[in-house]
């Protein structure tokens, strides 16, 4: 992965996770989130899977996500995440900023 991709991934992981969960509209567990992010990025972002978990936990601490465990003890239990009201607001703010940045960059770089 190039350094540009790495920098972009670092700066966008929070917003892409929020967007995915909002679009899907139902709680998802870590493994699902990672696979769907890979699909969505078409391989552009290669997520080191293990590093998504600290980000999910940080987002939960910040109140952007809430989690709960599904499954009975003794079976395969999964921790699923969903977006909180705070998370929805953050997503809207971030998307506005991205739209603005994208428009400006396109103008500056003379793209489309």
């Amino acid at each position: 992965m190039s350094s540009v991709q790495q920098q972009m991934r670092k700066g966008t992981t929070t917003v892409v996770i929020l967007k995915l969960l909002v679009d899907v509209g139902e709680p998802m567990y870590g493994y699902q989130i990672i696979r769907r992010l890979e699909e969505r990025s078409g391989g552009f972002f290669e997520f080191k899977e293990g590093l998504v978990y600290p980000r999910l936990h940080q987002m939960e601490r910040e109140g952007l996500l809430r989690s709960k465990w599904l499954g009975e003890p003794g079976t395969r239990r999964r921790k699923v995440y969903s977006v909180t009201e705070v998370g929805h607001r953050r997503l809207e703010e971030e998307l506005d900023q991205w739209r603005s940045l994208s428009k400006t960059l396109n103008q500056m770089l003379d793209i489309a």
Partner: protein
Amino acid sequence: MSDIEDLLRQIQQELDLDRETEQEVLAEIHTHLEESVAEAIAAGMSREEALTQAAVRFGVGQEVGQALQVAHGGWATADAVVAAGLPVLLALVMRWLVFAPDGTAIGWRQILVRPAFWAVALAALLVPLLKLERWRYALVSWGFFWMMTVIFALGSAVRW
């Protein structure tokens, strides 16, 4: 499962969290790795290949463990500070309620009809439960509040 167990051990070595949090973190990662292996086997890999691939895709255990510690560590410290400081603060307020400004103790019957007493007692019970994520911290905080209250009350009464 040695690749998975090795990876979990590497992660665990980097964690310095309370037992409950640590177990939850490791259980979540364990489930992830199991899913990853199952998917690879379903795609036609041998178990050994699937285990290796799952470990490689997951990343370096040490790096993941350090990132998880950063994500949880600071908050655990904040919780511990609140759990230690809050009962002392509330006990001081309680002491202020129990003793008049001239140092004379107010009778318990008088104290029990004061709304402020019940407000502080309720705050001591509810605030830790609402603020602290770990019920053990809340319980210790609540117990410490009453211990401090008794010590302050007895200490002041003896001096008086």
